[in-house]
């Protein structure tokens, strides 16, 4: 299969994720969109590794996964805490930290 197709898929997934981050208000959905962007990047890494025949891209994908796992732990904890105090998961309402 043409490796370009994987890259196109990765670009489409990344765009969907980015749009999700920009347009959605629900913190959980935004979080999922971020995960989608990370996985789009992983897909591009793995596809590139496969097409060049080296392991570098795969190693990078592993690192991204580890970081994403850690980020999920911290991010979900923050979202839960915000929900507990405000009874809302809307990220637009959590806008106190500003000028």
């Amino acid at each position, binding site marked *: 299969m043409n490796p370009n197709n994987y890259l196109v898929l990765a670009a489409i997934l990344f765009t969907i994720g*980015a749009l999700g*981050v*920009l*347009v959605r*208000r629900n913190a959980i959905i*935004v979080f999922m969109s971020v995960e989608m962007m990370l996985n789009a990047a992983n897909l591009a890494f793995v596809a590139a590794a496969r097409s060049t025949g080296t392991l570098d891209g795969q190693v990078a994908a592993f690192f991204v996964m580890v970081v994403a796992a850690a980020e999920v732990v911290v991010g979900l904890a923050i979202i839960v805490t915000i929900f507990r105090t405000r009874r809302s998961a809307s*990220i*637009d309402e*959590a*806008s*106190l*930290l*500003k*000028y």
Partner: protein
Amino acid sequence: MTAALIGLPLFGAATLLLGGRRTNAWGHFFAVAMSASSFFVGIFLFIQMLGRSGEEREAGQHFFDWISVGTFHVPFGLHIDQLSMVFVLLITGVGTLIHIYSIGYMEHDPNRRRFFAYLNLFVAAMLLLVLADNYLLLYVGWEGVGLASYLLISFYQHKPSAAAAGKKAFIVNRVGDVGLSIAVMLMFVTFGTVTFEGVAAGAPEAAPSHVTWIGLALLLAACGKSAQFPLQSWLLDAMEGPTPVSALIHAATMVTAGVYLITRAHAIFDLSSTARTAVVTIGAITLLLGAFIGTAKDDIKKGLAGSTMSQIGYMILAAGLGPAGYVFAIFHLLTHGLFKAGLFLGAGSVMHGMNDDVNMRHYGALRTAMKITYATFGLGYLAIIGVPPFSGFWSKDEIIHAAFGQNIYIGLATLLGAGVTAFYMTRMMAMTFFGEARWEKGVHPHESPATMTAPMLILALGSAFGGLLLMFVGDIEGWLEPIVGIGHSDHAVSNTILIPVTLLVVLVGAGYGWMTYGRRPVPVVAPEHVSLLTRAARADAYGDALNEAVFMRPGQYLTRALVWFDSKAIDGTIGGLSAAIGGLSARGRKLQNGYARSYALTMLGGAVLIAFVLLLVRL
């Protein structure tokens, strides 16, 4: 022994200044003791010096290397020779008398201890000035006497005029000091050393232009310290200080430091006729200018100050005549130190009896009320106008004689100066001691206490016989000859003609003064409608007006322009820049709106931009 001369008064000053109020009760006696013991050390050294013959009389003492950098070596050493010796005796002798006088004069002053501390400091600094063996150490003493002069002129700090006078003296002296520092630097560049010995040895081989410049720079220094034209304006204001200070610092010793400097640097001046001509010219101008100012002053101390300027003009003129004049410059310096100190102390005694009034128009007929002051002032008067056999006659006549040997116009200037001196001194004498009493209400003139009259009597004896003693017993010419040399210029006019002519001029001046102020009643208020000349003399020959127009006003405009430039241009640029950055960031702050999604958009925009740029660069 030489170090003790300086050390004793320095110790006195330190004790009184550091001891504080604990020394109030006995501080003035301690200061007198320190000054007197310094005088006795001076006498002891003098007797030792008398025991040696001409060439061996110089003695130097090297203490340590003060500055040693590369090829620049300045020793810290004292040097005593015949020239320093006469200064040591004058400074400590007259200084001690004035210390004693001050006990009575400053009796009721709450700051008497501070006054005596400064007097001791002055004596120490002045001794360092005349005992230093190089020009840089001389500079230290030079600045030291300047400091003491400043502190003592502005001693009555509560009077704004005294504070201003002190500052004026200090600032005008700085102008002269620039000359001395330039001279020292030029000496180092030219000779590689600043010791008296090294400079004298190197001068004949040095480039004539360098020698001339050094001479002119030294002359500038002498002008500042000795109140010579054009730096004369500070001396009249310096009379704001207590009268003993005027007598010691601004008549007998410090203001003559310029004469010492020129005489000490005779090796330089002997080689440069340009520098000598400049010295003679300055001396001639100042001797006439000072005498001119003295004729119109109603303030007794300012009249004497004008006279001091004039007499120092004589000394500077004599010093500028070269080997023919050095000896007589120093001779006149010594006799002047005696009679002018006596005159100032007399003026102080009169002021003491007249409730510190200095206006001679309020005096009159004091000869009966203050007999001792009258007698001592009278002897000083006879000495300064040059009546034989009083001391001023011997020294001034020699200067006039030598001046005629140099140049007929210089000689005529000195002769005219002698006549004007006789006029203003007679005026002062007549207004103070003769005529009818014009005392203000509540003033009861009385004779001063013995602590004041005793020094006056001693100085009066010095005024009367000092000249005779120095001339015939002391043989001042032979005494100073090994140091400054002696030269006889071809005297155009012989003394047998000159002495009667001089006496005639003096008689005319004195007679005119007596006719104007002695025979006619003196108005209590100074007349308003007077000639332009009188007005000019009352305004110190417009010296202050000139300084203000030429230096002060342009200086003020310059500082104002600089302040304007600083506040508008420099502060404006910096302030405008910070205001711009502040305003921009106040607006930029609004970007931080707290919405995570807008931050994400910014990040995305940045990432896209970077990707775009990377693609663009690769293509």
